[in-house]
């Protein structure tokens, strides 16, 4: 698996360094200069999320009074979530995974984009979102990141991913959209506490969410064939 820099050299370099520290078994090319893909021309382009949401429901089970009771807390949690999983951290987390193997793709060059796409355009625009002319092209979007706390089920963190395959076509030939979700124990940290452990947990759960999504995506792909 190779990482090539297009729009986000600094982010990729940082992500690659972190990945090399954390996942030494993943072979990474830490080149920071753009270069032609050499994995049969295949490319997987990755974009981080632009939309975060936090929702807490208490024993009232939702509604305006419940929302008002948790409004300040949800405001803080949303910002805390966007701090722990900002675009560089989302890309670094995904880059530390073997995306190609998890999605059961052929070898592909991973191209990360530092800036998220406008959220509402992700569903509307079905054509390629990069300038790539690759004949074996695919895209992965982190669409939504959602923290939820429910009175009975506790805290969880869900991520919506969208995977699109193009082959050599300018428009998507296959789209798979799905959530991955897992429980939380540390996030969010209590006010005044160190938030580092909670942040690390959120990043770890984000990776687990993607692994769950990838598993479902592969199952869906196998079921169609």
């Amino acid at each position, binding site marked *: 698996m190779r990482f090539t820099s297009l729009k986000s050299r*600094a*982010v990729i370099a*940082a*992500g690659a360094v*972190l990945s090399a*520290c*954390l996942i030494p078994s993943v072979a990474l090319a830490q080149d920071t200069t753009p270069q032609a893909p050499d994995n049969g021309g295949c490319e997987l382009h990755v974009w981080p999320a*632009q*939309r*975060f*949401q936090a929702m807490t429901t208490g024993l009232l089970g939702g509604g305006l009074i419940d*929302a*008002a009771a948790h*409004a*300040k807390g*949800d*405001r*803080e949690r*949303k*910002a*805390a979530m*966007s*701090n*722990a999983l*900002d675009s*560089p*951290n989302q890309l*670094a*987390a995904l880059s530390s995974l073997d995306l190609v193997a998890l999605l059961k793709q052929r070898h592909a060059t991973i191209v990360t984009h530092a800036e*998220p796409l*406008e*959220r509402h355009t992700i569903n509307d625009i079905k054509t390629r979102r990069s300038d790539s002319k690759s004949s074996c092209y695919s895209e992965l979007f982190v669409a939504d990141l959602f923290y939820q706390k429910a009175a009975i089920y506790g805290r969880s963190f869900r991520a919506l991913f969208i995977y699109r395959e193009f082959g050599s076509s300018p428009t998507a030939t296959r789209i798979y959209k799905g959530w991955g979700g897992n429980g939380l*124990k*540390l996030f969010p*940290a*209590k006010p*005044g*506490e*160190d*938030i*580092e452990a909670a*942040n*690390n947990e959120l*990043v770890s759960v984000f990776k687990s969410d993607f692994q769950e999504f990838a598993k479902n995506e592969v199952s869906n792909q196998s079921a169609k064939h």
Partner: protein
Amino acid sequence: MIQNLIARLRPLLLLAIAGAASGANAQLAETAPPSRDATSGCELHVWPSPGLESATEGWIRNNTQNQTLRDPPGKSLGLANAIPPQAQLDAIASLNLVGAFHLNDAKVITHADPLPPLLAGAPIVRQSSATTPCYAELIIKRLVYARNPLSGGALQSFFVFRQFGPTDVRSFTSMADTPVLSFPWKVPEEAERGRAELANALRTDLLTFAKYSNKPPAKRR
């Protein structure tokens, strides 16, 4: 007789030794880096964040990141540039950071440029080239204008404080928030009041964070 002579000359000898030592100290102080504090050599390095971000929600729809900071059509409000790095450093310049973080006689050194993003799990290393053994860092990691229609708006500030000892590092990362009412401003004439309120909120957040960092660590849940 010789012993008597030594005893008589002892005060003079001691004065001579003390003089030589102070001369050497003076020479050391001259050759030390200009940023080094002459008394203790302690340094507190401070970095600003790249600027303001937003994480807001509307009454009907959830907003995307930084949506609030965009100028409305036909208006130039400059919301995205409401508190740039230099304005952050100016805002906290009046604070007694050394006292707030219980650093004895440390010299405060501000860096004009923000640091690159700090990635989760990355090793903790000094962010400056300073080699002084008594060294601490305060990083304004992120400034987020957060708003929920039911709770109002606030400046939510994320900070990192790191104190480097001879063999270990104490690192504390946390956040504090202060309600703001004058942001986002609707017309350019209100910009000054909005900026002043953000600067004040940043000061309050930083002092709150300093209190958090001085508390003993809480027990794990």
